[in-house]
């Protein structure tokens, strides 16, 4: 089964083609890494998949459901979760409240106008477990704004994982992290259940080759290469435009 199918997607920003006919298929349970130089259109593609921007043309299918015109929250309820390249958290809430929001959104409990917060007690254990897994044990009562950058990046992932997504989009999860923090994030991704499909933008080659089943390379709004590690390393075009040869 195909987890995600991007079919000939275009997107222009005022005459500049950010995506010009991208097609991409990610199989169920696959770990796919998206490579490409800055401005290649990787994050734009992520925005199109998660619904933050609408494609000018083309189709996006998630687990056999056409999601091209759905809102981001509708896509999320179909099992899609994402992190943001620029950290996008709740700066004034506590870590625990953030995670409870993430767990509650997935549970789709509705508005719950008068439900007491204490009713969430059943979620507290789940929240603690999630924070533990993401290397954030003990941070629950802290205000998100006061977390270190590395901790905030880990919280990004924790929020995305809370809903037990079927497709997880990770936008440069290790960007700006120390080597030790990068190892922790790689370890975390390794430990995720194998039936979770992951599409990930990554600039660190070692991380990319370690985590990916397959790799796709973007350049100037197009997909120029796809394959496993050996195929990508052997691809002359990729070497030319991405791996440094001018």
């Amino acid at each position, binding site marked *: 089964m195909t987890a995600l199918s991007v079919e000939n997607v275009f997107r222009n920003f005022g005459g500049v083609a950010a995506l010009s006919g991208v097609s991409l298929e990610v199989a169920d349970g696959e770990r796919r890494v998206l490579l490409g130089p800055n401005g290649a259109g990787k994050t734009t593609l992520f925005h199109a998949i*998660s*619904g*933050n921007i609408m494609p000018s043309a083309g189709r996006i299918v998630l687990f056999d459901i056409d999601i091209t015109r759905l*809102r*981001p*929250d509708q896509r*999320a*309820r179909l099992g899609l*979760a*994402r992190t*943001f390249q620029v950290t*996008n*958290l*709740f*700066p*004034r*809430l506590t870590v625990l*409240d*953030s995670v*409870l*929001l*993430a767990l*509650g*959104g*997935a549970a*789709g*409990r509705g*508005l*719950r*106008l*008068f*439900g*007491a*917060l204490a*009713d*969430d007690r059943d979620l507290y254990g789940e929240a603690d477990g999630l924070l533990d897994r993401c290397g954030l044990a003990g941070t629950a009562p802290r205000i998100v704004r006061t977390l270190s950058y590395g901790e905030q990046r880990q919280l990004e992932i924790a*929020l*995305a994982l*809370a*809903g037990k997504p079927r497709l997880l989009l990770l936008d440069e999860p290790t960007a700006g992290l120390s080597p030790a923090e990068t190892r922790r994030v790689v370890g975390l991704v390794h430990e995720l259940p194998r039936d979770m499909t992951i599409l990930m933008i990554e600039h660190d080659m070692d991380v990319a080759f370690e985590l990916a089943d397959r790799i796709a390379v973007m350049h100037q709004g197009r997909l120029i290469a796809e394959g496993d590690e050996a195929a990508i390393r052997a691809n002359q075009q990729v070497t030319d435009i991405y791996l440094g040869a001018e």
Partner: protein
Amino acid sequence: MTSRLRLLIAAVAVVALLIALPAVLRPYSLGLSTKMLIFALFAMSLDLLLGYTGLASLGHAAYFGVAAYTVALLTLRTGVNSGIAFPAALAAAAVTGALFAPLALRARGSYFLMITFALAQVVWSVAFGWRSLTNGDDGMPGVVRPNFGFSLNNTTAFYYFVLAIFGLCALVLVGIVNSPFGRALRGIRDSESRMQALGYDVWRYQYVAFVLAAAFAGIAGALYAYYNRFVGPEYLYVVQSAEALIMVILGGAGTLIGPAIGAALIVFLEDFVSSMTAHWVLVLGVIYVLVTLFAPHGLIGLLVDFRQRRSAK
């Protein structure tokens, strides 16, 4: 749990003080206290939007005024019992909010502010221009206070009536902001896109918050019509909306106690300043500038900063 205990003691003390007030205040001051409670409720309702949902409205007087006019029109033009006019006024404010919200929620930030402002001005111009119905800028005097078997015409009885409704509304508001719904509103305030990515239908939450804020503003507006026994188009005017915003910002947005304190202070200052000069709005502007410069998180923010600095020592 000492902090929770301290909070409980403070709350009990405040409630006791509010109940004891008529015993110690002269009628004029008690009347002013009644007005403070009404505007505290008005400011708290606005804070549901501004401080909790992150939507700055410059048109909150619309819902306040619509409710006030509903009370006046029903009691003076149709002779409906004043007690029945009260829930009708609440409903009118909520319905107005429910109709305006889809228009206002198409925009964010300063554009949201401008749309809410424009919508309120539309309501104001109806009240101002439709003389045969509303008497235009002469307003409608002679609004009768409701009678629930006992008269509310005496200052003390009316104070307790307002205090009871204020207390009830405050409890409901505390329940709302501390519910999972309230937490979702704070999440939306901090990051709409993140909430969407988590599967929240952000629009629906904002819509409900908007209607709730309008409904509570309506309760305050109806009480104010009873309080003054009069309604006029200035209830709907932009100055009224701006004053409410300043009450919230002065006290501290994102809390319920902050706007209540801000409202009490502004009502007091307005009374005090108006006895000396006609330029109240000018003074209000100066207060606004000072607050944004020196206490951007309001008086509550100052208090929190002070306590943090003291405990850090």
